[in-house]
């Protein structure tokens, strides 16, 4: 019967597709595991106290670690302050201007980070004369982080049930008080998740830092201006191409440290999301 013949080839096709999708999924996951394997297998033998005490002048990466944390901290302070309250504006006071701002937040996420970096170079390093500086880098990172913090804050605040807010308004509280005391408490995990993700992104950035912070082989002197800063991603990029074995080790150990940070932030974010859904 015609349908019987067609049927077996249809089943063959179906089985093949099942196998193909599985294969492709494994194929994409393989590099992930390979990456982790490569980094761990190259970094672990080189892990030593020296790595974490000395700077890139000699045989360590302490300046890169401290520098990365310094830059991320500085930019987070700015990005979170700006981003969270921008999110408050979008969530609490809608309207035309809010959609206008939302549009630009989306556009901003699409700007390549190198373009942000070059902008930072032109305006802060050159025009404003700050030179290679932590502040220039921090503003570049802030520009990259803000849209994420803003939008996640907005979504988190929108999820606050209106009954809770109405209860507060009914007691005579102002919008500011309601948001600060009530909404934030409810939306905190969601907001934190957005912050963690934005921090993770900024930790992994290189291009915008190359021409704002440049690189520094010594510990950052915590000056905000006129002083370049070292960071992990530069070490990975620049040192891997050097012929010295030590440089390679430094690159891999930096990768290891960076991956640990990224993984922790990612796990932290997932944990927070799980807790949020439970509440």
């Amino acid at each position, binding site marked *: 019967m*015609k*349908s*019987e013949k*067609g*049927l077996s080839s249809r*089943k063959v096709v179906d089985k093949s597709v099942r196998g193909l999708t599985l294969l492709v999924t494994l194929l994409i996951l393989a590099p992930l595991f390979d990456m982790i394997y490569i980094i761990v297998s190259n970094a672990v033998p080189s892990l030593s106290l020296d790595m974490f005490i000395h700077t890139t002048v000699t045989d360590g990466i302490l300046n890169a670690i401290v520098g990365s944390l310094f830059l991320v901290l500085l930019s987070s302070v700015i990005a979170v302050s700006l981003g969270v309250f921008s999110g408050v504006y979008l969530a609490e006071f809608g309207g035309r201007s809010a959609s206008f701002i939302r549009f630009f937040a989306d556009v901003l996420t699409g700007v390549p980070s190198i373009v942000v970096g070059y902008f930072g170079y032109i305006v802060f390093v050159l025009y404003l004369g700050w030179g290679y500086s932590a502040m220039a880098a921090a503003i570049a990172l802030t520009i990259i982080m803000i849209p994420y913090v803003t939008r996640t804050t907005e979504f988190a605040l929108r999820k606050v049930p209106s009954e809770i807010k109405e209860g507060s308004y009914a007691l005579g509280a102002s919008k500011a008080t309601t948001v600060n005391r009530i909404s934030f408490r409810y939306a905190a995990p969601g907001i934190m998740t957005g912050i963690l993700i934005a921090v993770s992104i900024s930790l992994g950035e290189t291009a915008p830092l190359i021409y704002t912070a440049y690189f520094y082989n010594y510990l950052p002197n915590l000056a905000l201006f006129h002083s370049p800063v070292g960071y992990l991603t530069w070490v990975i990029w620049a040192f891997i191409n050097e012929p010295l074995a030590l440089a390679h080790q430094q690159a891999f150990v930096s990768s290891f440290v960076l991956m640990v940070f990224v993984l922790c932030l990612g796990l932290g974010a997932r944990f927070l999301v799980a807790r949020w859904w439970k509440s």
Partner: protein
Amino acid sequence: MVEVLIEEGRGQRVTLMTSAASSASDAKVRLETLSVFYGDRKFVQDISLNFKENRVTAMMGPSGCGKTTVLKTINRMIDLVPSARTEGSVFVDEDNVLDSSFDVTLLRRRVGMVFQKPNPFPNSIYDNVAFGPRIHGTKEKKVLDQIVEDSLKGAGLYNEVKDSLSKQASALSGGQQQRLCIARAIAVRPEVLLLDEPTSALDPSGSLKVEQLMTELKKDYTLVLVTHNMQQAARVADFTAFLYEGKLVEYGETGQVFENPKEELTERYITGKFG
């Protein structure tokens, strides 16, 4: 109808027709101690029930009595529920469809289904009806055209849509959409049609058309109808089964079940004491 050659002699053939009634009352679908478990809970309990060929059999009962679950075992749509397990047998003709080696794709061609809420595909009317035949290998346009026309006629929808077959199915009214779904189901020439509360989402005139359609359709198909609506069962079904809490309480000719129920539970349901 069965024709039996009696004698070939003197250049004459004599045939004997056996009674039409007895062959048409063979069971097309047979449930034998069918049980369905959702997880650990025995939802459907040891039901044995026959559905006669070319007849409409209704399954009715209060919500949660298991009638839709039983329906879904007949075309193995129960497989879609991850926690469901079956025991017992469901025979379509002589094949036990619950057997794990039984081919589900072919089964669903022999046993079609119409759902509670009309679910036309986001395509044209033509493409909806042609969907089944295309899947099963029919490609030539002329053949498909004929199938679409026949199926729409069989569903009583042809005259209303014949000039707009390329229109989107979603543009039809609810009742028309349901008849389209029936056309789609019969386009693959099934032997059995399962109808899961097919009129519950329709307005009265749409419902009426579908009910009249069922009475026509049974000439060519075996219909199994799940319904909440006792009056509908009384109007449309030849046989009625009453289910309660997963068990088969009573089964018989519709007239008898409604006017002279054998079980007290049946009587209480019919007179509206619960359900």
